[in-house]
């Protein structure tokens, strides 16, 4: 499998899901339990991605400059600082710590 295969399959899947919502009669996903699971699925996947992106290095868990950067990002989101600013500050914090180390 090449990068292009991955991109094409994943794009086809996500686009198909969008079309399903608009073309298939409503039903299953409007019931309470499936709707709740769909909602929580997004939360779980994003939280897991944060953990892996912050602590993972291949198959190792590494605590490095990413951790303080993410803590600063959380504080800024709590203060309602806009997304793009927080992302840039997080990069600056990590880059700064690495430059000094």
């Amino acid at each position, binding site marked *: *499998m*090449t*990068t292009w*295969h*991955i*991109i094409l399959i*994943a*794009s086809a*899947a*996500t*686009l198909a*899901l*969008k*079309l*399903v*919502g*608009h073309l298939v009669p409503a039903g299953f*996903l*409007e019931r309470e*339990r499936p*709707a709740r*699971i*769909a*909602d*929580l*699925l*997004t*939360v*779980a*996947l*994003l*939280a*897991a*991605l*944060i*953990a*892996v*992106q*912050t602590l*993972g290095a291949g*198959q*190792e*868990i590494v605590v490095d*400059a*990413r951790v303080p*950067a*993410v803590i600063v*990002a959380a504080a800024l*989101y709590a203060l309602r600082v806009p*997304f*793009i600013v927080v*992302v840039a*500050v*997080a*990069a*600056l914090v*990590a*880059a700064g710590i*690495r*430059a000094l180390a």
Partner: protein
Amino acid sequence: MDERTAADASAAGDGDDVAAERSTAVRDSLAVGLATAIYGVSFGALAVAAGLDIWQTCFLSLVMFTGGSQFALVGVLASGGVAAGWSAIATAAMLGIRNVVYGMRMKPIVDDVDPATGRGSIWRRVAAAWVTIDESTAVALAQSNDRAARMGFWVTGITIFVGWNLTTLAGALIGDAIGDTRAWGLDAAAAAAFLGLLWPRLKRFQAGAVAVAAAVVATLTTPVLMPGLPVLVAAVVAVVVGWFNLFDRRRAS
């Protein structure tokens, strides 16, 4: 937002209600649309940092066009490479499931049924599906009537589509130019981007509990599973908690 809509509507005369609501919808749409479109820069830079070329990066923003799935796909590829391809696809697809729910909510609002045939245009439906994302749905649902909701959906969706693709290209070019992405802290920026997508979803206790549990599961399984799989295993937390409706503080109180 609701209060302002109501205030605008009551300040205007009866005949101006519709115009006032439409202009509120357009204003909301442009504010949300432009703010969202800007962070396509971070996606473009991160995608290139993950090893995608500029064409692949732009293709994702044009066709996939759903931020969470796009960030997830390049995030998993960044950690596991092409070997983690199926995990990357599965993660992106599962994050896209919420768009099915959004589509079902938006369908009655955006469907413009042709009175002659009694059917909506298929192309309009495909276009609506294409721009069905968190933001277009949220702006539409925040409006006070169907006409304003339809306006909000389309203006937000189209603004973000155009802006997101332009900023993705800009970000990809920047990412391509800067080279060593770790020295620039782009790996930390990716984590902060995921946190930004998660943040507005943490208002309920149940969501917070799922987030913490999923993060713990992903961390603990990282040393023992292939890169990419820990994220998928963590998704099981959502299925279990959602199925049994655990940690639901509203029900308990």
